[in-house]
Every structure is written in C-alpha cells, then in structure tokens.
C-alpha cells in the first residue's frame, strides 16, 4: 500500500476542511473534558465511600485497651468476646439495619493508613514508635441502614452497651457531600452527552463534505480497483487526528484540574475527605468502565467515520 498518497490526501483533507475539523476538535475537547471530570467525580465518590462509608452506613467502634474516648462503656478495657456477641445480636435484631460487616483492627488500620498515604499524612503511622498502631486501632462494625432517615433506635440501643466506644454517624454531612457529587457527576455526564452528540453530528457532516470534495478521486479509485480500506483510510486518519488532538487537549485540562484543582486546592482545604489521585486520573483517561476519554474520543470519531465511509465509498 502506498502510504505516501494516503498522507498527502490526509494533509490536503485537513487543510481543505480546516474549520470543520477545528469545530470537531473543540467540541470533542470540551465534551471529553466534561466526561473526564464526571469520571473523576465518580471515582471521588468511590474513594470517599471506601474510606468513610456511604450515607447509609454508621460506624460502631469497639473499645480498645486504654480507649481514647474514655467512655464508661470501655471501663473494662478491650472489648470482650461476650460484649462483642451482645453488640452483634443487638445489630442483628434491629429492624433499622439492612446488613452489617465486622472490620478487624488490622483491616481498619490498613484502610486508615491507605487514606493517610493518599493525603500525605502517614507520618503518624510510621517511624520507630508510631502514634497509630494496629493494637491501638479499634475493631468496628459497619452497619448499613435500610434508609438513611431511620437510625435512632439502633444508635440508642448500641450507645449504652459495654464494649462500644464511639458511634460515628456522618449521615447528614456525608449525605450532602454525596448529593453534591451525584449532581456534579450526572451534570457533567449530561453536558458531555449533549456535546458528544454534537461532536458526532459534526463528524458526520465533515465526512460528508470531505466525500463530496473527493468525489472525483473516489470515483476513479473505485474504477481502477482501489480497496475500500485504501479509499477510506484518509477519512479515518482525518477523524483520528481530530480525536487525538481533542483527547490530548482534554487530558491536559483534566491534568490541570487534578493538579491545581484537587491537589493544590481541594485536598488542602478539605482534609477530612480522601481525594482522587493520579491513578484515578489515569483511569479517567484509559479506564474501561466507564470508558476513559482515550477510548471515548477515537470511538466517537472512528465508528461514525467507518459507517459513513462504507456508505460513501462503497465499491
């Protein structure tokens, strides 16, 4: 295959339809940036849920030896097996509870350490005599409620039980945060959806125009026996160039958002939440579910191009 011709045609095509290509690139860039931000917000919600539990959950910390809460429930020191059994039964018998899960000291410690690493505050976990150790970390129950509104019964039942150190009920605060995240996520996805649809229409118009401009060449190529792929290749490459530029610009905007928005601003000001990191950024770029912008951009340009060129350059 003579690629020289293909690249000459690609150059000519890009020059000939410059304004259309710029429109496609700009629309792709904005829509992919929004889609990427939507993915990052979704990741943020997952990270926050993993770390803090969602608005349906309350955390019941069990007493440790020398418990920092100084609760009278912890007068006997570390929670005993009997106390734990009683707590478990109370949770199981409550009609407000959907399910519960036990988190051992080690699991709780690992989770907290991971979160501290994300926020660069792991100093308390490290060193020869760390403040935070597995022994000092409380075992706990994650209690999932049937509805976030009803938890008074189970909370008051557990509050007075020996072995229960602290009940962390962050339903209101977390509910608001997750609510904002949900709005942001769906808002950016809906915005991205409309713009991606606009990009799709622009791609189809661009191909139509390009096919019209090349109709003589295409007719001759068909007659002399050029393969469909060879005829379609300049169209596909034009679409790919638009996609690559759009994706690169969107990736830049997302990187800027991650660096200045998340790392330099949000994580400094809102420290109780763990924040998305560069691993999440990579997921927003190349993740499969939901598809990252590196997949989304080329798919949105190449698939319609393939379908349309089949129509216009059919041998």
């Amino acid at each position: 295959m003579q690629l020289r011709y293909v690249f000459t045609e690609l150059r000519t095509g890009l020059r000939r339809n410059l304004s259309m290509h710029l429109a496609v690139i700009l629309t792709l860039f904005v829509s992919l940036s929004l889609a990427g931000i939507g993915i990052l917000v979704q990741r943020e919600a997952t990270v926050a849920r993993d770390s803090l539990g969602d608005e349906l959950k309350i955390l019941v910390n069990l007493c440790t030896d020398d418990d920092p809460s100084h609760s009278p429930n912890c007068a006997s020191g570390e929670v005993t097996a009997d106390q734990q059994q009683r707590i478990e039964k109370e949770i199981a018998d409550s009609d407000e509870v959907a399910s519960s899960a036990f988190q051992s000291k080690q699991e709780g410690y690992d989770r907290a350490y991971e979160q501290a690493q994300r926020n660069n505050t792991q100093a308390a976990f490290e060193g020869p005599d760390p403040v935070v150790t597995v022994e000092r970390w409380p075992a706990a129950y994650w209690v999932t409620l049937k509805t976030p509104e009803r938890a008074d019964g189970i909370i008051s039942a557990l509050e007075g039980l020996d072995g229960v150190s602290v009940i962390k009920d962050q339903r209101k605060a977390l509910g608001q945060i997750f609510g904002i995240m949900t709005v942001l996520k769906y808002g950016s996805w809906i915005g991205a959806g409309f713009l991606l649809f606009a990009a799709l229409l622009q791609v189809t118009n661009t191909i139509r125009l390009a096919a019209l401009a090349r109709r003589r060449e295409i007719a001759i190529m068909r007659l002399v026996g050029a393969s469909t792929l060879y005829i379609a290749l300049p169209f596909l490459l034009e679409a790919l160039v638009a996609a690559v530029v759009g994706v690169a610009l969107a990736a830049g905007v997302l990187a800027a958002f991650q660096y200045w928005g998340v790392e330099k601003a949000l994580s400094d000001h809102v420290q109780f939440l763990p924040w998305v990191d560069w691993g999440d950024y990579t997921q927003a770029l190349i993740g499969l579910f939901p598809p990252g912008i590196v997949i989304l951009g080329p798919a949105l340009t190449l698939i319609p191009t393939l379908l349309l060129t089949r129509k216009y350059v059919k041998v």
Partner: protein
Amino acid sequence: MIRFEKVTKRYPGPGRPALDQVTLDIDKGEFVYLVGTSGSGKSTALRLVLRELRPTTGRVHVAGKEINRMAGWKVPRLRRQIGTVFQDFRLLPNKTVTENVAFAQQVIGKSRREIGKVVPETLELVGLKDKGDRMPDELSGGEQQRVAIARAFVNRPMILIADEPTGNLDPATSAGIMNLLGDINQTGTTVVMATHDHGIVDQFTKRVIELDHGKVVRDEASGSYGFQH
C-alpha cells in the same frame, strides 16, 4: 472474456427492464461496438461488467468469474483487470498528466519504481510523451481523452471498456482515438466500446452488438452502425 447469460436488469420503479434476457459472449482480444439509442441498455451492460450493478436475474461472467455473486471485497481485484474510459474524460484537474496516469497505479499500491517505469511508457504509447507535466486544462479534448485512455491502460487490464469515448470529439480527433484503441486491442486487450458515433463504427469495422429496449437485436461479426440516429 465477458459472458451474459439471460441477464435482466430492472431498476426500482415501474417500466420495462433496462436489460431484458440478454445473452452474449465476447472473447478474449475482441473489439466490440455496443450500439443503440439512448436508454437501450448500453451503459447498464457496461456497469454490470464493472460490477457497479448486479443483474436482477441471470449471470454475468467476466474473466472467467461469475461476478454477480462475487463478495464485495473481491470487486477491487476484478476492477484492476478492467480499464474504463468515459465521454467526459474524468481527469483530476489538480494533477498533471503524469500524476493523473500514476494515480491509477498509486491507489492500487504499485511501487514508485514500477510507476516511474510504466507511466512514461504508457504516455509514449498514447502519444503524450512530452506532455507529462501539463495540466488537463492545458490540453485539447483529444489529448485529454488520450490521458484518460493512458490511465485506463496503465495497469495493463485484460478488458478496456469505453463509454462513448469519441462523444465529445471532432471526427479527425475521434479517428486518432480509434487508432489508439485499435493499438491497445492489438496487445490482446478486449475492447468493448459503447457508441452513438455511426461514422466511427462504419469506418473502423468491428463486431457490432446492437441493443434496443434492453434486448440484443443484432450481433454481427463485422457490422456497420445499422441505423441513422
């Protein structure tokens, strides 16, 4: 080389078929005129050979292959064995003569070396050796048609299809084009030429197949145009 077996081609909509139970056989190396009035089915027959159309019923064989059932991806390979020339030349106006001819080789993946060798040879064959750098609009009609013939012949096809190649040319220029097509035929290429030009058919006597309302009404080994139009 080309065989139609009871070929009928019906376009969507009411009316008679464009081709109606046409059976014909054109051997390798033949020169055949396809004559008939407008709407007689000449162009449909040529488009069937090129596999631009498929017959409604019947079979079309080209170069030993039944092409009406040929898979789409095999069609380009078939077309590489067929050169096509049109009344309106269909040259690319932004390319030189050489580039126009080379285009037919480039797009089927021929090497630059081969193109560099074959294109000048073909331009010499059609009498345009010294005009390779000209743009199409700098040439006369006859010269433009020679470029179109060079482009059709540059891949040395087994069949050359010419649809009214002299339709836009004066008699003297047309005679030159006919001589050129005759030379190409002498190399063993089968030439099928649809034409209205009775002067040409009568002067350069060859086999004549006449179509009328989609039917073959005459097939003479060495015929004349047969009717005045």
